[in-house]
């Protein structure tokens, strides 16, 4: 069915738009954006003046766990979680079981995503077979099957030589190499940010330099190879410095930050009686200076994207000793409220800049459609209620897993609706949008 979104505030930085416009959607694409558009045969949706219509958000870093870890998440529950969180597309990391290191796994992901039919799913293939750091995967074949990038996420690209070759090889297909930057010897068996909080709690530390030394390596190799390296879930002040310096030299280095790394610090390890395993993620929650640096990087443009690193884990897995619980938290259904509350309402970035971080830039970095409401573009749209307060209830998440540190938080800013290819795939009934069926 065709839709006419009437009178919303359209924030579309790719086309320099920020104002009251109508958006006409026909045959799954943006037909027109303008004032007082005629509805024709389209269903008219009155958008409240307070709502914001923007190009669909793209989360370029999620773990959907299927195939192989379906007790944590499936592609179907993962994309349901995505659209409920305002994301019209997600890029899923290859550390499934088996690892997405060959086209047959990629095809399975693509098929399951099509069957689920909610958010678009862009698979990320492994850099090395089994993500073991030894032999390059068949990247051309992965690309043909649907992969948009390569990464050994969960692990770093193991050696400088492998990273060099991956950058050289992937550049033939114009694909970024996404790196989970971490020097394994410096990380050791650490479980929390190396600093005074972990020091007094007796938790083994993961120093910031374990991340930044790999960022430096990758930046240097990107410069030498002219390849595109994208730094996943950057967390440390020193890493941001390395990215800034590399960008200044003209290297193709981009980076993302997660909401939890610009919202929380390692002080959270002392919350809830201490040792809450929902505060355990990798990279770890870092110090205040690091958190503030991430906010500054978002403000000044040196950080390209916000991604969630959505990492579902079963409650039984998280109910272990802090040392033994797995790293990671879910993020799809809390990211947008955290961004609106902590970045937009806190005057760190404008709504327009937030749309760049969540939509325009991820589309550009992954070379996928989206990030724009230009006429003819796919009608992937996120509608926000920026001023509506929401309280996070993990129990209501669409994700199969509830491992969030934000349960019970009240945040200003909500997702009103999510539209993928012109189809309304999520509506918040309290949004006041006339879209609820």
């Amino acid at each position: 069915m065709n839709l006419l979104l009437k009178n919303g505030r359209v924030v579309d930085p790719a086309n320099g738009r920020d104002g009251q416009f109508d958006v006409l959607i026909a045959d799954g694409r943006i037909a027109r954006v303008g004032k007082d558009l005629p509805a024709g045969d389209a269903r008219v949706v009155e958008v409240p003046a307070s709502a914001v219509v923007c190009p669909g958000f793209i989360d370029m870093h999620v773990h959907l766990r299927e195939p192989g870890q379906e007790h944590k998440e499936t592609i179907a529950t993962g994309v349901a979680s995505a659209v409920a969180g305002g994301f019209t597309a997600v890029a899923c990391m290859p550390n499934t079981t088996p690892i997405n290191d060959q086209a047959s796994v990629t095809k399975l992901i693509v098929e399951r995503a099509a069957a689920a039919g909610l958010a678009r799913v862009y698979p990320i293939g492994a850099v090395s077979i089994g993500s073991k750091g030894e032999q390059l995967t068949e990247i051309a074949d992965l690309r043909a099957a649907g992969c948009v990038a390569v990464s050994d996420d969960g692990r770093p690209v193991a050696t400088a030589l492998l990273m060099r070759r991956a950058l050289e090889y992937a550049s033939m297909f114009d694909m970024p190499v996404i790196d989970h930057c971490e020097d394994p010897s410096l990380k050791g068996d650490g479980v929390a940010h190396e600093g005074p909080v972990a020091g007094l709690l007796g938790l083994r530390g993961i120093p910031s330099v374990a991340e930044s030394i790999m960022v430096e390596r990758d930046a240097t190799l990107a410069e030498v190879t002219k390849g595109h390296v994208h730094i996943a879930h950057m967390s440390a002040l020193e890493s941001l410095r390395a990215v800034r310096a590399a960008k200044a030299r003209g290297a193709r280095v981009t980076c993302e930050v997660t909401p939890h790394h610009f919202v929380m610090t390692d002080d959270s390890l002392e919350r809830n009686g201490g040792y809450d395993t929902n505060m355990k993620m990798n990279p770890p929650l870092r110090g205040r200076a690091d958190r503030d640096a991430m906010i500054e990087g978002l403000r000044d443009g040196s950080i390209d994207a916000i991604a969630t690193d959505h990492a579902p884990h079963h409650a039984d897995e998280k109910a272990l000793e802090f040392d033994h619980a797995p790293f990671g938290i879910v993020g799809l259904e809390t990211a947008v409220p955290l961004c609106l509350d902590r970045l937009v309402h806190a005057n760190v970035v404008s709504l327009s800049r937030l749309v760049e971080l969540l939509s325009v830039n991820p589309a550009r970095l992954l070379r996928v459609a989206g990030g724009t409401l230009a006429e003819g573009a796919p009608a992937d749209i996120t509608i926000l209620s920026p001023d509506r307060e929401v309280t996070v209830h993990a129990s209501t998440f669409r994700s199969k897993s509830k491992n969030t540190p934000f349960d019970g938080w009240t945040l200003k800013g909500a997702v009103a609706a999510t539209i993928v290819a012109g189809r309304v795939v999520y509506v918040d009934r309290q949004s006041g949008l006339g879209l609820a069926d």
Partner: protein
Amino acid sequence: MTTAATSLRSRHLLGIAGLEPDEIQLVLDTALAMKEIGTRAIKKVPTLRGRTVVNLFFEPSTRTRLSFELAEKRLSADTLGVTTSGSSVSKGETLLDTARTLEAMAPDVIVMRHESSGAPHHLSRVCKASIVNAGDGMHEHPTQALLDAFTIHERKGRLAGLRVSIIGDLVHSRVLRSNALLLTRMGAIVTAAGPATLLPYGLDRLGVQVKTSIDEAVDGADVVMMLRVQNERMRGLFLPSVREYFTVFGLTPERLSRAAPDAIVMHPGPMNRGVEIDSAVADGPWSVILDQVANGVAVRMAVLYLLAGNEE
């Protein structure tokens, strides 16, 4: 003046971090009365008769486990010992399931040692029994710090203003963390010294001075507390060798001569003679190491009495 504590505010003893100075004082005062019981011909009182204490040890321990057991027996508690090596993960049952199984037997107190920092905190959120932390990973060992404080007080008559130096493998030591918290809270001047590869973050937040020279740390100290250096740290990247460690950090009579004339030497045990401490020091007139062991029973009796003896 605030009113002095007459009971502990929490039903668990997870760490010194959760104790106010008046609660620490209460444990020390109570331990004094308990110590007297140990001097009697019949060293047993009915205080915890009918109460059940489980000693749940996930890490090998001799002295702490025996000390708790003796404390429980002297208070007439029924005791159960569960000693299991290796983590709960490796044997296929989670810590929570182990705890729930024990809980079904309705114990009043679970004394617990575990290799993971925070494991007792984790249990305290689900268990009805009082949890006593008998050492969690690199985090805390609160009864050790309490017995150390009791021993220092017994010898020096005070804690406030004393210069206490803690020396050895700082980063891996729960004894260090609990002692640093307790002693600074009670007004002592605490210095910690160890190899630069084994220094933890955060001690400065407690007001502890951190040094890498044992000679500077010992200089003028009233109390010298040596920490055990585990053998597995002695190879590889923390320390080059036992020999070098003793040369640079071993406590010898010569080094000790820089301390206050009436200084005492402590060690939580088990000692590595010739590694962190010279036998001449361990067995010399300064040593209160065996007093620490004896006082451990009295302090643990005090803790158990305060947590489980006051109900009804």
